[in-house]
């Protein structure tokens, strides 16, 4: 009987062939002393390596890796920073808005009466009614933007990867 190429015996040992091919190789090996002998040698030698137990490296290796990569690690931005300028502005705008509201309620003034009284004032005359109206709308816009900015910031951070 012609002996198989040793590669086939190795493929058989490591199961690196299809089921059909493995069955063919198995049939051959069962009737070939040379191939049986070679398979035994491979099994014995690889079996000896299992006597070498798996070992663990020092537990500080990953800490050392972290030290090396630290400057490039991306840290997640904080969703809220009490010292940042945004909350300070927000509080300031909020207070202005509240004082204006209380004043309007106490003096029983409506927006139209306020506007009428303002129209005679020096700054409306200086900047024009469109300019003043634009400034008021801008202030309200900034106030709304500042009010919701921490929420937007938090939402965007939630989707970021954890570092």
């Amino acid at each position: 009987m012609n002996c198989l190429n040793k590669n086939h015996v190795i493929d058989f040992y490591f199961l690196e062939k299809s089921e059909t091919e493995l069955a063919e190789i198995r049939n051959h090996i069962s009737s070939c002393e040379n191939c049986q002998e070679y398979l035994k040698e491979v099994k014995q030698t690889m079996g000896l390596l299992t006597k070498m137990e798996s070992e663990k490296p020092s537990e500080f290796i990953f800490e050392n890796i972290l030290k090396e990569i630290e400057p490039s690690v991306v840290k997640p931005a904080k969703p809220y920073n009490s010292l940042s300028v945004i909350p300070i502005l927000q509080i300031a705008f909020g207070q202005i808005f509240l004082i204006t509201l209380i004043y309007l309620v106490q003096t029983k003034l409506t927006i139209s009466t306020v506007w009428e009284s303002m129209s005679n004032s020096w700054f409306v005359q200086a900047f024009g009614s469109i300019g003043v109206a634009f400034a008021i709308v801008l202030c309200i816009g900034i106030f709304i933007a500042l009010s919701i900015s921490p929420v937007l910031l938090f939402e965007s951070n939630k989707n970021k990867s954890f570092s």
Partner: protein
Amino acid sequence: MDNVEKYMNKYSDEELIALVLEKNSKALKILYERYHIPFYNFVLRYTNNREVSEDILQETFTRVWFASHLFNSDKGSFKTWLFTIGINITRNEMIKKRYTYQYIDFEEVLNEDGTSQQLDNEEPESILEKTELKDTISQALEKLNPYLKEVILLKHYNQMKFREIAEITNTPEGTLKARFHHGIAELRKLLQRLEY
């Protein structure tokens, strides 16, 4: 392991390396946890030097971090890529220096949980036999040609297919199988010479 790490532990290697690309250190830690033991043992048997093996382990994962943009999942798995980096570093180290044989103390061999092997329950003769056997195998591996050793160790410690080893070492499968036959034959000869 915190909750984020527990959650990320379910991610595939490819998902984790994508996060490493975004400079996420927790993703690197999980990849390290998955592969550091088989990789370290492969390098340890290759170099037979603990200190050098730990340095190589550290350098390999540091390179994974800085070169994560070079990983392409179409070309192969993360494990294959990791070992490609590791083998190149190991080969370079071996060329730079010829490491002398360093006896790996059997007493220092630890289990996964950090406790020592069951030496207390064993007879002194049995411990001595095991130590001698380990020592003999270490010596035989030490003397084996690095190219032959590489294939045998990757097969043994990482259960890699010849196709994967071919990718890692950039060597045709046929050549690797020939090296494997040669390696097994050499190892048997060396073990016989060492009176095993």
